[in-house]
């Protein structure tokens, strides 16, 4: 769907409210350094800094935590140790981000192990939205499964093909 120039000129219905913010002075973000309107929150005293009950990583670039903070995954286990290591580097270093990416993957495995330990068998297909996939994208899903199966079978055949001669040699 791409309009040619003639079709573009033929759009006859102007958009509702067209040009109502044409004057930059009517735009909330102009000038960019304008302070936002103060609301009722100014009636309350300043927020007392939150106290941490768990370990919170602070970027080496930041001097302190913001007044309010939180995390759904406090650092723990191997992934926590990896995050400890990552936070030794500034955000300008790949060592920081790549270690955090790796720690995130490790944390996924730790979550599965933790689930199994507590007797909960994680339903990963459900968590990945298999219900919606089967309801609205069945054909593509079946094609994907067939593709993966074909790749695995081909890989197994290739592996067997190259393995057999070596076995005959021994």
């Amino acid at each position: 769907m791409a309009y040619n120039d003639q079709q573009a000129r033929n759009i006859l219905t102007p958009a509702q409210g067209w040009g109502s913010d044409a004057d930059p002075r009517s735009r909330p973000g102009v000038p960019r350094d304008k302070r936002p309107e103060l609301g009722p929150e100014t009636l309350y005293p300043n927020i007392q800094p939150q106290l941490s009950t768990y370990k919170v990583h602070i970027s080496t670039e930041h001097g302190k935590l913001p007044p309010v903070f939180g995390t759904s995954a406090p650092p723990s286990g191997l992934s926590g140790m990896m995050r400890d290591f990552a936070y030794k580097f500034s955000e300008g270093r790949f060592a920081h981000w790549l270690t955090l990416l790796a720690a995130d993957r490790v944390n996924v495995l730790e979550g599965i192990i933790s689930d199994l330990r507590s007797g909960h068998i994680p339903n990963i297909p459900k968590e990945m939205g298999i219900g919606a996939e089967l309801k609205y994208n069945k054909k593509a899903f079946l094609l994907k499964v067939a593709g993966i199966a074909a790749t695995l079978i081909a890989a197994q055949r290739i592996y067997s093909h190259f393995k057999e001669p070596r076995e005959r040699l021994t």
Partner: protein
Amino acid sequence: MGEIKKGDTVVVFGAGPVGIFAAKSAQLMGAGRVMIVDGYDYRLEFAQKFTGAEPVNFRELDDPVMFFKKTTDHLGPDVCIEAVGAEADGSFLQRLTGVKMKLQAGAATALYWAIDSVRKGGVISIVGVFGPTSNMVPIGNVVNKGLTIRANQASVRRNVPKLFEHIEAGHVSPKDVLTHRIPLEEISDAYHLFSSKLDNIIKPVLIPPSVRH
């Protein structure tokens, strides 16, 4: 962020909820021509109806950059808004290195197109979400074309009063983009529906059990 002036030509990359509202905002700011780009016709049809912007399906074009050059007398649009982010389709190499192999912070295809499409001295506004490492973009073209790049997340508190004015005046109807209402317990399915763009979804809302009848 795009400093849109009356009569400007604006191209919005991405016809998700953010891109749709960016296109609508461009209209409210008096853009002379607004185009919105996506790879899904259902989204483009919705965006055209909701914003009045011209729909452009990049899958139907050999080279989107050439399309925007040709349709603007070979100058390029005044403003390009990147509202796609890391999951962009449209380039095998960007998908492979950014989405599959994680060698860069997502596929920067739309940002690449935006930089190459916009006119010399034009403005790129980035609202799409990227990862924290780095991306392959033609930064040399940014210098050679004298572009301005602005990027930010929504300053919600600052913009909400103005948004209410537009709703009251009948310029915008945000509820129209809410195509799916899904129980909170089915959040995995809701996420998959949205991320895979199934069932003509534009934006889902999750309904907690406490407010269901």
